[in-house]
């Protein structure tokens, strides 16, 4: 389900959603904890199938795979967040996400699915600095507990910056 | 006794003739009654016949009276002698006086045997008493010795009994040990026998092994030669294949490059590419075949090498085997000799232990008998001790009896 979000550059990210009475998120599990991405970025949930590893690749780039004729990169967010590998078996679930011109597959320990939160449940992440909070857009408070919402664009930016010399 | 002269005279009461016979009759009656005192008064007898009878009667009476007087005197002296003898005997009896004799020096002939007899009796008693005294002393001493000995004997017997008992127990153990040894010896003998059989079988087996090894040696040489010939042929094939391989490889490369040019030329090079592809297929076929041949050659080489190695190993093994079989043969023969000795020895041991076992059994039996005998001896000794004690007591009594008689 897609929320009608307006892509405005607002200082408080959720203010872009101000006129709406709920925010759609897609929850997933990384590093044993609950994370989420904005549901609007998620295109589908798939099983990756065999992932072709690339030579001289950074740790967060697991490789490429064939998604219905389209070759997509596969990224492990856990490597960016904590330099830990998400254990991926053949046929692991991944979410196809698109952030601007960037389309890729994100692997996770588990994909929990869509949920709605009221804007009032959102709050700023802890002060930005080194560490995982660098990659958080905001924190959503839900019945099941707090949910760290990932800033996908930021993650891709940081990933590019960490490219290996070649 | 009244003397004859003092004999009363029986006078006739009457002067008649009957009265005179009566007087004779009276004296005769008195004589018959044992009264020899009366005489007939001959003077008063008138009848000459009666006078003669009366005188005869008076002679008879006188004679009788003398006779009687003589007897009475003899009797008296006899009685006196006897009284003395009796006194002597009484002395012996009452006071134990054996040292003397009767004291009767001149006994009447009548008494003489009696006195001699009594004197002999006294002498006999004397010597008997002396002997008795000595004997009783000896008996006393001996019985004391016997008692001591019997007591000693009793304790020795007890020791012996316990020693015998111990020995019996030890012998029983020895018997069972001997039994074990006998059994073991029997087992050893049996095992030795079996070992002999096995060793003989081993000997036979070794002989056949030796001949088999020699056969292998000969076979190994033949195999070795055959292998050599095969190797040479394989080598020749190998080198031919190498040449073919290289040619095929170059052809393949040529075809590849042709295909590459065809691909670069695009549409124009399509036909070229097809020809190149064909050529490539041919070259690949050749290469596949040569590959098969090469791998086959490789296998043959390996097999040949392996066989050569094996043959060499066999040859060496055969040699070693021969040596070892020889050694083994020697060992087996030594064992056989040793076993036969052992077998004999075992048999000897078995017999010996069997003998020992029966000997031991005999000893045990003897020990048991000895034990019984010892027990009997113990009882006997106790009895002997008791008897000796009794004897000692008797000897004492005898001694004291003998002491009652004075012998010197």
């Amino acid at each position, binding site marked *: 389900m897609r929320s009608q979000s307006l892509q405005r550059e607002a200082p408080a990210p959720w203010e872009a959603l101000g006129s709406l009475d709920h925010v759609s998120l897609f929850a997933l599990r990384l590093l044993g904890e609950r994370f989420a991405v904005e549901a609007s970025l998620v295109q589908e949930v798939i099983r990756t199938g*065999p992932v072709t590893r690339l030579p001289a690749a*950074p740790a967060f780039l697991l490789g*490429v795979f*064939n998604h219905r004729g389209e*070759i997509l*990169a596969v990224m492990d967010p856990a490597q960016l967040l904590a330099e830990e590998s998400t254990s991926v078996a053949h046929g692991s679930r991944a979410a196809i996400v698109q952030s601007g*011109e960037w389309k890729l597959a994100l692997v996770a320990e588990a994909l929990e699915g869509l949920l709605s939160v009221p804007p009032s449940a959102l709050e700023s992440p802890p002060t930005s600095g080194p560490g995982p909070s660098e990659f958080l857009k905001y924190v959503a408070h839900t019945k099941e507990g707090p949910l760290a919402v990932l800033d996908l664009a930021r993650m891709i930016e940081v990933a590019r910056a960490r490219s290996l010399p070649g | 006794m009244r003397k004859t002269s003092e004999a009363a005279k029986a006078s006739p009461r009457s002067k008649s003739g009957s009265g005179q016979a009566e007087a004779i009759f009276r004296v005769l009656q008195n004589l018959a009654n044992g009264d020899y005192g009366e005489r007939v008064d001959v003077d008063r007898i008138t009848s000459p016949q009666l006078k003669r009878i009366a005188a005869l009667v008076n002679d008879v009476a006188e004679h009788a009276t003398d006779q009687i007087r003589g007897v009475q005197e003899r009797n008296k002296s006899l009685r006196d002698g006897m009284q003395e003898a009796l006194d002597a005997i009484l002395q012996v009896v009452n006071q134990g006086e054996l040292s003397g004799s009767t004291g009767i020096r001149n006994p009447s002939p009548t008494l003489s045997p009696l006195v001699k007899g009594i004197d002999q009796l006294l002498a006999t008693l004397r010597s008997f008493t002396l002997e008795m005294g000595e004997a009783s002393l000896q008996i006393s001493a001996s019985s004391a010795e016997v008692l001591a000995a019997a007591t000693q004997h009793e304790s020795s017997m007890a020791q012996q009994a316990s020693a015998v008992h111990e020995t019996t127990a030890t012998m029983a153990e020895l018997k069972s040990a001997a039994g074990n040894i006998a059994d073991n010896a029997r087992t050893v003998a049996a095992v030795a026998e079996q070992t002999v059989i096995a060793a003989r079988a081993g000997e036979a087996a070794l002989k056949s092994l030796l001949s088999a090894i020699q056969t292998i040696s000969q076979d190994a040489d033949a195999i070795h030669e055959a292998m050599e010939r095969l190797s040479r042929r394989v080598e020749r094939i190998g080198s031919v294949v190498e040449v073919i391989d290289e040619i095929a490889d170059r052809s393949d490369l040529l075809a590849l490059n042709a295909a590459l040019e065809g*691909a*670069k030329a695009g549409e124009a090079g399509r036909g070229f*590419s097809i020809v190149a592809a064909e050529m490539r297929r041919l070259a690949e076929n050749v290469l596949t075949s040569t590959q098969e041949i090469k791998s086959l050659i490789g296998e043959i080489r390996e097999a040949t090498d392996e066989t050569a190695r094996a043959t060499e190993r066999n040859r060496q093994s055969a040699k070693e085997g021969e040596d070892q079989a020889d050694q083994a043969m020697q060992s087996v023969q030594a064992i056989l000799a040793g076993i036969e000795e052992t077998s004999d020895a075992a048999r000897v041991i078995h017999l010996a232990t069997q003998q020992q076992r029966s000997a031991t059994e005999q000893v045990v039996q003897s020990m048991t008998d000895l034990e019984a005998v010892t027990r009997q001896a113990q009882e006997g000794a106790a009895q002997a001790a008791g008897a000796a004690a009794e004897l000692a007591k008797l000897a004492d009594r005898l001694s004291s009896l003998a002491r009652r008689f004075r012998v010197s």
Partner: protein
Amino acid sequence: MTERGILLFSVDGRRHAVDAGDVRRIAMGSEDEPGWIRSSILGSPPRPRRGLVAALEGEERALAVDEVEGIEIVPAADVSPLPRLARETIGTRGIAGIVVREDELLFLVDLPQLIRESSKELSSHAEDE
């Protein structure tokens, strides 16, 4: 172009592709040919039978490969560039794209670039010695 000619080769057990245009010719592999690249991001061929010869700045250089499997004409659609994130983050420019085949994805190797990068490795090692 609706089609592309690609050369399929293998190095150390993995199959790769290279554009036919990148390869001037295929040479006989040999152990002691000087100037041949025997180690790259693709690995090292244990038994190089062939060499892929490319023209680099006027001279011929070769990449040693185990086998040249064949030359194929494939639809252009089967050949994709690397996804941008991959292209920008991996430590080589020697992979130009991905060739989609029935059941596998093959790297489309930029042969001159690969040789260049591997030559730099060689020369930098040589300098260090």
